[in-house]
């Protein structure tokens, strides 16, 4: 499937179409191939550490006024959900016989995951990262280099995730014969949005089964943060057919959606084309992409995956903004009530839990995707809270 309603498609240079066709063909074959699926499942279990826990966060629940179950993607190898998608794409890369992978990264989690999979499978790896992000996520730059990846700071445009993605596309169009572009979210040209969703959907498949085991029933709502939207699609997908389960995505509102410093693409953007897909985009009236802002590098992106655009328009999911301040308050609350330091990205979904708790009442059961851990965010947190 290349479209989600009117969204998705392949708005890329013709030079890339052959590679997208090849990827589609190899992926469609892999879906039906027991060897591939077995190898992917084995890596997720033995290497990434799946299944991840579904944890009943009782003290956090008490503080926000509804029962919260945390899907602990922060406990995966490399510290975030990104490893799920990357292991799938790295396996496909070896199937295509390509010796090199490239990736864009914002917070650095996807770059670290790609560098990790490349080390595991003996692939050459180049990661593009906006110069601003290399500064605010310096620890992850060191991790990627330690893992043998080359990290290129991108100095064009806003020097964040969007520009890193531009540079990765430029590399790919030049080196497409030898290189697979491991897109890190559910954006980009087809088949990436559906393929990345499929690789990430193990999150929701597990969470749904764990809920049935623990509760004997389904939760009332599933919550995730949304930048490009892969952790959200990962946990939403298994629940989409369950009409009783409400789906909530939380976008980065930065300084507030009424300022010009936010990354709330679905809340404040409009349909357009960015990075190969038709979806919502933060843009001006000439179609020029607006610069986004978020305290969280992983959500600091002016686009969003096309399936989210469709889930919004069709009403199946609800998308709400969470400001930097609200996210940081939730970040601290989880630290203090549960002894878990979340990624600032994930803290947006934790802040959203308070909003959903108010809507659904104290008896509601909410599953929150704790998409990553916060070690990488210590500098930001220390600054924000004046800790050092």
């Amino acid at each position, binding site marked *: 499937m290349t479209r989600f309603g009117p969204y998705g498609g392949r*708005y890329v*240079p*013709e*030079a890339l179409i052959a590679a997208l066709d090849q990827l589609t063909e190899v992926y469609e074959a892999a879906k039906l191939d027991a060897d591939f699926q077995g190898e992917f499942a084995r890596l997720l279990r033995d290497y990434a550490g799946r299944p991840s826990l579904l944890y009943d966060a009782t003290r956090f629940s008490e503080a926000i006024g509804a029962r919260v179950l945390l899907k602990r993607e922060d406990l995966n190898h490399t510290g975030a959900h990104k490893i799920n998608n990357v292991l799938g794409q790295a396996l496909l890369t070896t199937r295509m016989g390509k010796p090199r992978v490239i990736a864009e990264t914002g917070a650095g989690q996807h770059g670290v995951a790609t560098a990790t999979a490349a080390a595991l499978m003996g692939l050459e790896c180049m990661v593009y990262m906006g110069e601003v992000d290399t500064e605010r996520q310096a620890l992850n730059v060191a991790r990627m280099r330690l893992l043998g990846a080359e990290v290129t700071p991108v100095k*064009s445009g806003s020097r964040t995730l969007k520009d890193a993605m531009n540079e990765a596309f430029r590399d790919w*169009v030049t080196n497409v014969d030898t290189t697979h572009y491991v897109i890190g979210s559910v954006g980009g040209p087809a088949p990436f949005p559906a393929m990345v969703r499929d690789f990430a959907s193990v999150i929701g498949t597990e969470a749904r089964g764990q809920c049935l085991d623990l509760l004997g029933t389904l939760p009332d709502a599933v919550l995730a943060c949304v930048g490009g939207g892969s952790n959200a699609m990962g946990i939403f997908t298994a629940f989409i057919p369950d009409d009783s389960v409400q789906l909530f995505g939380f976008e980065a509102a930065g300084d507030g959606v009424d300022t010009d410093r936010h990354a709330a693409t679905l809340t404040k953007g409009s349909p357009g*084309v960015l990075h190969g897909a038709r979806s919502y985009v933060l843009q001006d009236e*000439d*179609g020029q992409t607006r610069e986004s802002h978020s305290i969280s590098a992983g959500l600091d992106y002016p686009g969003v995956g096309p399936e989210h655009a469709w889930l919004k328009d069709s009403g199946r999911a609800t998308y709400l903004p969470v400001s930097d301040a609200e996210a940081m308050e939730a970040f601290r609350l989880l630290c203090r009530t549960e002894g878990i330091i979340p990624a600032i990205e994930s803290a947006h979904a934790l802040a959203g839990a308070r909003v959903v708790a108010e809507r659904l009442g104290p008896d509601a059961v909410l599953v929150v995707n704790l998409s990553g851990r916060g070690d990488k965010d210590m500098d930001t947190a220390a600054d924000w809270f004046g800790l050092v």
Partner: protein
Amino acid sequence: MRSGEAYAAAKAAGRAAVVGYLPAGFPSYDGCLEAMKAMVDGGVDIVEVGLPYSDPVLDGPVIQAATERALRGGTRIFDVLRTAEAVAGMGVATVVMTYFNPVLAYGVERFAADLAAAGGSGLITPDLIPDEAAEWLEVAAARDLERIFLVAPSSSASRIAATVDACDGWVYAASTMGVTGARAATSQVAPSLVGRVREHTDLPIGVGLGVSNGEQAAEVASYADGVIVGSALVRCLLDSESPAAGVAAVGALTADLAAGVRRAA
């Protein structure tokens, strides 16, 4: 004049056409028009007016630098259309080269109407493949605007066939796998790509990506119908010590290119 007619006129003169690209609003609105005039006086057959875009994934550092500067200078779609109108008024075939999102945001029908009114003859769309272009194809056909799509060395025979089928005016052959930018040597794969495209169409074929001087233009002109030059012209303006020197360099390079295609003939 339509750009397809400019190809025909060049062919009638026994040579390839020279197609020159500069982004609107670079180095300034007026500075761009002066450079465009120098290109026309230097002998360019077709002008591509670039629409500066915030996320130019198919452009190398030279054109990125120029379009970023044009955007910082406040260049709007309206200015691009005014530029196209002024260039068409110089008596040269004029097309606009643009990533697709600005056209979508402006409105495909409105863009086509305003482009036609400005005297532009069509659009080159580097990130729009015919598969995604239903709305543009319909609107362009209704207004008789040229649809110039790209083919690449990686394009399969069936994709080349489908792409040239959707083209009107001419076909843009991207000579190398890569982004825009001058290269020391011209592409080895371009002649075979042009040969593969000719099996499917009688439309003129322009070759772009990497041509930077008259010698390379002569080489490309020996197998293609048009020689497309962008980054090398932009660099004349980026590298110049003064605006006037930049414009003079654009004129000199265009004259060199125009002499090159005549040498090949």
